[in-house]
């Protein structure tokens, strides 16, 4: 009996013990597991703990594994690490499996959203080059001018020393410069002031960013059939700033001032005068006799709320110059004067997932030009309004849509030569009064899709809404950006584009121009090396007025560019680029080489920058001369009492000599506490080479000689700054 009872008691105790054991095992256990992120990469140093004992946790190892020794069920298991949402799981009882696999989700990427709704253009990834203010100041050729900075790029194929953008072999009138969302037609000054040629209308101190689309301009903008330069003025002011400058040909002042937390203004003015510059460079500038320019700009920016802002930029310029000019057998003075005023006003609203902008432009100009029996008075008015709406559709997709209204009017009051070759004041002329206007209304849709981290695709459609007798057109484009890693970047783009020509006294009409373009751009960048290359093909149609006597209607351009920039050391940097352009134009139903056929176009720079001593940049350009049609003979005409030129029967039969230009810019920065002084000097065409600009002839066309680009010229100046 006893033994039975003892046995039962024993069994009972054993069972109780066993049950207790089991239940106690069920309550406290070790948890093993692995923590990874959304890309299945192990998360190191994540905290793993229970909600009841947050201080008795553990951390994951390098491979994401953890072992939490004592976890008492039921409880909540938490895993946390910076940059991720804290993972929580309520565990009622021991896990069935050996270990737990945890995927940490990233926190809402607030930074990505910022990018989407920020002011950067939707097409940013498809711009070949982005220049910031510092890039303009440190550019070896720019002399602080935003558009001059572009001429150092291999995609810039200017052959005329002007700041007007000429991109990838297309004429400058096919490319557009857009400032704060509105087009600025003819964005350069007339006068050749500095030894480096024409300057643009823009001031680097006002500029925040500048995007260059060398070909395939994004269809968020219209009226371009070549490339696009998109410039944005400052949206914030880093510091108050006063600047005064004086140079051989200019005195100027600039003031940047914050007006409270959310508002600032920038104002500047310049007066350019000829005396000192022409005196120093006497005899080296063949044509320029006199010039005067006055200009002033005012930019006002205000953040109305956290989400909305307004910007207003107004600019006025009054310029005049007198230069010697040759036209056929006549040599005389040309006298040019121009006033221009434009005002760009913008409103921008940024919400979490959309962005809305209104951009407006009013642009007036009046110019007088007198030369021989030619007298031209042109008044121009441009007005532009666009509405843009950018929407973040999905995390990876954004779309932008909008409409633009672009009105342009020209009034010509000209006295033009009766005979194109008879230009002296006594030669007959006729009065020509003409008004041309064009209303260009377009609507567009542009989408940008980040397929994955490496691949982005964009597509765009832009169509006109024809007014008057305009023909209907649809511009389309598609682009891919492939970025396999941080160093390599490929952009493949193609599309069809449309623009209108800008009227001039040679032809006062608006012609519709078209182009079909394909381009592949590649870049490789590291801290020390930037290598870019591009290959492209363009097929352009429309009316091309090359001169009074040559018109062509189609052009094929195939180009290849290669560029390398290398920081040899902290102080020394060099760059080297070459561009090849095969330009075929159709004249009288037959294709032949164009004037800008360039078998090479070398640009090289060497920069030494040592803030304690000085910064010096050498820049060298070497390219073949452009082609022109020579005049071989003259026939005397009684009605004009002058010789009429007889052109060679082969168009573009002769070539100017090859163009070589070595220039040097040198500057030194002297800081004095709140003040700073920048002293600079430049020499253009150091080798004093006679680079032929165009052919000139004796009165009977029996002798040919050449007009040259600027010979060796010197320029210098200083800038005084006060920052406070």
């Amino acid at each position, binding site marked *: 009996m006893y033994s039975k009872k003892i046995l039962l008691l024993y069994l009972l105790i054993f069972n109780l013990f066993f049950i207790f054991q089991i239940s106690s095992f069920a309550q406290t256990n070790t948890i093993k597991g692995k923590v990874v992120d959304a890309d299945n990469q192990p998360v190191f140093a994540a905290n793993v703990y229970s909600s009841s004992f947050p201080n008795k946790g553990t*951390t994951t190892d*390098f491979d994401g594994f953890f072992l939490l020794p004592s976890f008492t069920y039921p409880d909540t298991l938490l895993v946390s690490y910076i940059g991720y949402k804290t993972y929580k799981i309520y565990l009622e009882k021991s896990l069935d499996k050996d270990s737990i696999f945890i995927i940490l989700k990233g926190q809402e990427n607030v930074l990505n959203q910022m990018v989407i709704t920020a002011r950067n253009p939707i097409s940013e990834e498809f711009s070949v080059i982005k220049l910031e203010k510092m890039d303009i100041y440190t550019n070896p050729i720019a002399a602080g001018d935003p558009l001059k900075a572009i001429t150092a790029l291999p995609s810039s194929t200017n052959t005329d020393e002007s700041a007007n953008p000429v991109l990838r072999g297309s004429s400058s009138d096919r490319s557009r410069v857009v400032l704060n969302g509105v087009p600025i037609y003819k964005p350069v000054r007339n006068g050749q002031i500095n030894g480096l040629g024409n300057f643009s209308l823009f001031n680097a101190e006002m500029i925040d960013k500048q995007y260059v689309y060398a070909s395939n301009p994004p269809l968020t903008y219209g009226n371009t059939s070549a490339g696009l330069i998109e410039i944005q003025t400052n949206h914030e002011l880093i510091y108050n700033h006063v600047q005064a400058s004086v140079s051989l040909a200019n005195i100027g002042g600039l003031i940047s001032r914050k007006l409270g937390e959310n508002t600032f203004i920038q104002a500047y003015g310049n007066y350019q005068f000829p005396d000192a510059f022409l005196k120093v460079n006497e005899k080296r500038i063949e044509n320029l006799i006199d010039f005067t320019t006055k200009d002033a700009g005012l930019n006002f920016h205000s953040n109305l709320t956290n989400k909305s802002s307004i910007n207003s930029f107004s600019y006025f310029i009054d310029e005049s110059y007198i230069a010697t000019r040759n036209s056929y057998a006549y040599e005389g003075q040309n006298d040019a004067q121009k006033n221009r005023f434009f005002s760009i006003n913008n409103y921008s609203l940024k919400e979490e997932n959309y962005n809305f902008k209104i951009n407006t432009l009013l642009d007036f100009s009046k110019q007088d030009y007198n030369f021989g029996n030619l007298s031209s008075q042109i008044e121009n008015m441009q007005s532009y309004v666009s509405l843009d709406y950018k929407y973040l559709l999905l995390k990876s997709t954004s779309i932008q849509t909008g409409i633009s209204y672009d009105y342009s009017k020209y009034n010509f009051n000209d006295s033009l030569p009766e005979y194109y070759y008879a230009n002296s004041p006594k030669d007959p002329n006729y009065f020509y009064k003409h008004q041309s206007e064009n209303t260009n209304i377009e609507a567009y849709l542009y989408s940008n899709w980040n397929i994955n981290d490496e691949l982005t695709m964009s597509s765009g459609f832009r169509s006109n809404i024809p007014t008057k007798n305009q023909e209907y057109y649809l511009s389309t484009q598609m682009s891919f950006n492939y970025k396999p890693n941080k160093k390599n970047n490929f952009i493949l783009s193609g599309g069809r584009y449309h623009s209108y020509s800008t009227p001039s006294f040679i032809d006062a009409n608006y012609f519709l121009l078209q182009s079909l373009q394909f381009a592949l751009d590649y870049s490789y960048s590291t801290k020390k090396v930037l290598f870019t290359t591009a290959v492209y093909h363009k097929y352009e149609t429309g009316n091309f007025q090359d001169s009074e006597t040559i018109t062509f209607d189609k052009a094929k351009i195939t180009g290849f560019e290669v560029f390398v920039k290398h920081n040899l050391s902290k102080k020394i940097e060099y760059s080297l680029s070459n561009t090849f352009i095969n330009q075929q134009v159709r004249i009288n139903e037959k294709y032949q080489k164009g004037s800008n056929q360039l078998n090479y176009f070398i640009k090289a720079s060497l920069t030494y920058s040592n803030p304690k001593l000085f910064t010096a940049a050498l820049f060298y350009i070497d390219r073949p001369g452009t082609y022109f049609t020579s005049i071989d003979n003259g026939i005397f005409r009684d009605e004009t009492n002058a010789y009429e030129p007889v052109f060679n029967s082969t168009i573009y039969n002769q070539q100017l000599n090859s163009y070589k230009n070595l220039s040097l810019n040198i500057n030194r920065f002297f800081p004095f506490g709140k003040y700073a002084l920048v002293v600079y000097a430049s020499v253009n065409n150091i080798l004093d080479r006679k680079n032929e600009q165009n052919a000139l002839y004796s009165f009977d066309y029996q002798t040919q000689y050449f007009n040259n680009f600027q010979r060796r010229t010197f320029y210098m100046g200083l800038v005084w700054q006060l*920052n*406070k």
Partner: protein
Amino acid sequence: MVNIQKKIYDTFVSTMMTQKNQALLDLNDQLTALHKEKKQNLILYWQSYLHYYNAIYHLKTQDKDNAEKQIDKGIELLEDMENKNSEDYALLAMLQSFSMQFKSGVKAPFISKNVESNAQKAEKLDAKNVRAYYVQASNDYYTPEQYGGGKKAEKLLLKAVSLPEQSIKSPYLPSWGKEEAYEMLTKLYIKAEKWEEAKKYYQEGIEAYPNSYVISQLATKLVGK
């Protein structure tokens, strides 16, 4: 990697005493080898932090060229890092801010803008990250008034000292910034001759960090005020 921040600091102190930075370089070699094997951003973070201390070492031993090289290396590591978190941005901003002393006057305002932008990213990604505020404050504090500095530091430092050292407690993660924020706040009040506030934050600081050399140094300036 446990208590790595303290290890780096202790190594730095010892190198300052011996005037040889071999120990810092050895530590860097170890981290480099570790990162080769385990591709973790956190290892890169501490490598950058180590470069920062190496730069301070060179600066203190009058070798500006190497100081600049070290800080540039630290900045490069962080700039190249993918998927940066709040701590990475905060450290990047601090290193950039430190690098300004080596850069020419023309570039300084642009670097200052980068510092501000990165520190703001750090704040956006984690509003409780004390280092995000400290770095912004420090940038403002050391930006000369003529460049618009000295206006926001006080507010940012007050925010910094109100936050915990770490939003996620971990011996692997950084905890710097709060001690420095107390020091800078006290200095700021001393400079402005606001003695009551200076004493208040000195007291709070020294209570939170009784062994702090940088805070305790300020005591002499407060005596008799």
